[in-house]
């Protein structure tokens, strides 16, 4: 990540609250917009951020008041870097069933991690599964740039 000139970075520890999480992601979206992001690039980052935040707060920390989520965001014109770390027991992403398999298609859960993987350019979980790091390389130039 050294090579990028980040225009905006945020590194903070938030409580295990979806409301607070949504607000922090709003800040990220504003920073991206200011850096010229829009359209599907912006949408993809928003989706991955929301899903990762909700998983950290609900599955990871189980909304415990005693646990926090560490978030780190970096934004440049061409690249966005996002990291979420919770204090839960983790999980193995590779073990998750494929939600697009015929037998899982109508299930009412299990699409978050799959969407994260498909929305971002690079996604990696730590061994334990309680930290996800992701990068989005911007695909499209916006019309007015």
């Amino acid at each position: 990540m050294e090579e990028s000139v980040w225009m905006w970075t945020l590194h903070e520890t938030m409580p295990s609250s979806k409301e607070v999480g949504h607000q922090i992601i709003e800040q990220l979206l504003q920073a991206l917009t200011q850096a010229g992001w829009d359209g599907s690039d912006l949408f993809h980052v928003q989706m991955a951020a929301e899903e990762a935040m909700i998983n950290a707060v609900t599955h990871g920390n189980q909304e415990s008041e005693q646990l926090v989520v560490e978030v780190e965001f970096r934004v440049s014109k061409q690249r966005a870097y996002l990291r979420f770390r919770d204090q839960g027991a983790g999980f193995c992403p590779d073990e998750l069933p494929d939600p697009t398999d015929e037998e899982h298609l109508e299930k009412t859960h299990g699409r978050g991690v799959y969407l994260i993987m498909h929305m971002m350019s690079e996604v990696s979980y730590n061994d334990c599964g309680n930290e996800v790091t992701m990068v989005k390389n911007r695909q499209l130039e916006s019309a007015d740039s």
Partner: protein
Amino acid sequence: MTERRRITVVTIGDLATVRFNDKKIVDSASIEEMGAELMSLVDKDKMKHILLNFEGVEFLSSAALNKLILIDKKVKQAGGNLRLCCLREEIKEVFTITRLDRVFDIRKTEKEALKAFGVDS
């Protein structure tokens, strides 16, 4: 008329056309409320068919998708059809990536969707 906070409804016979009041469908309490309001269209208002018009909706999370699957099951159980229309490109892509475009009947315009319901507008 019923007070609804998350959706705005127009009915023609037993077909309800629904628009969403929120641009972002992501907050879990709002999703629950939206789900309950849609459910009551079938349970209470005895609507058979539902058209979800996504005009103006800019974002939805996987939790919203999960709720839509429940609504779809409900409508089918009641012998009706659920259709979606007017999805912005990025939201359409979410349905494609998750293959939910095979579960839901998605139409481009409201006119097309209404036609599929047998309503000519």
